[in-house]
């Protein structure tokens, strides 16, 4: 009844239960954190703007991104994945989301940053709808925990526009 294996089994079960409970509690404490991030994005330059031979519009932008995501970090945060997406509507598509830039923030002291960059991923439309197009730039962040539930949120910045003519 109380053999070695019986005890070993009981001990292992207990240890795993406690570990699972602690992981769950660590994840629950994430809910107590109410982040107040700030972000500011400017389109500093439109480098070029053209129609590809296959008929899709493509534009190259230079972006100035400054953000403070320090409040998204808790003790259960492994990293924060941050990315900037252009969002707009076209006659064909009710929603187009195109990632322009992303980055991985590994620690809290690197969560306040300001960079100038050209778009990392190509800004290509499905079709030729980008001339004079109004679009939103949205800064998204995904909090990846050490264990437990993942969180995501965003800041939408409206009021960006593309020129009427290719250049």
């Amino acid at each position, binding site marked *: *009844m109380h053999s070695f*294996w*019986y005890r070993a*089994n009981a001990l292992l079960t207990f240890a795993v239960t406690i570990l699972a409970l602690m*992981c769950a509690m660590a*994840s629950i404490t994430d809910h107590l954190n109410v982040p107040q991030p700030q972000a500011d994005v400017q389109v500093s330059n439109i480098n070029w703007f053209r129609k590809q031979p296959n008929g899709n519009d493509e534009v190259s932008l230079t972006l100035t991104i400054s953000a403070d995501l320090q409040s998204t970090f808790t003790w259960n945060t*492994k*990293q924060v*994945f941050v*990315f900037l*997406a252009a969002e707009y509507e076209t*006659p*064909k*598509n*009710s*929603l*187009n*989301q*195109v*990632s322009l830039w*992303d980055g*991985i923030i*590994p620690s809290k002291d690197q969560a306040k940053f300001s960079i100038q960059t050209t778009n990392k*991923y190509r800004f290509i439309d*499905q079709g030729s709808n980008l001339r004079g197009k109004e679009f939103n730039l949205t800064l*998204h962040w*995904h909090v*990846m*925990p*050490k*264990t*437990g*539930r*993942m969180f*995501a949120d965003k800041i939408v910045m409206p009021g960006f526009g593309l020129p009427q003519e290719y250049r």
Partner: protein
Amino acid sequence: MGLIGSARDSVRSLQLRQLLTQAINLGLIVTSALIIWKGLMCVTGSESPVVVVLSGSMEPGFKRGDILFLRMSKDPIRTGEIVVFHVDGREIPIVHRVIKVHERQETGEVDVLTKGDNNFGDDRLLYAHGQLWLQQHHIMGRAVGFLPYVGWVTIIMTEKPIIKYLLIGALGLLVITSKE
């Protein structure tokens, strides 16, 4: 040696009634595992609610051997979400992040492009030949939760099958020989 000997003795000394009880116990363990798995499938709406990360393409977020919990809800796919998808002609599903979404006006169909955080380029090279976008039916679920290291158990068991059989054998012996 003493352990195996006593185990053999106890197996030999079993009566038919006891043997049946043990068989039922074993069956209960197997079926309850199945019930939990199928229950999770119902709750999460995903055909595989738990997946193990097999590659380093999402590092440092997800490492090999980490476990992801998936959900498949009616919510439309959006950029930034980490989805698990099948590619035609590939057996093993891939866990990567969505970087582009184009959603149709009337039908609501989506074109999705993915990329691994740790990869240099997007996933078009991984897709079937000539495939530019993923559609809704390629996607098995989106990752909602994360547990580190636990998946190593399954990785070790699939790569070293002998350990799997040893473990199953030992557990079976334990169930058969344990007397309540």
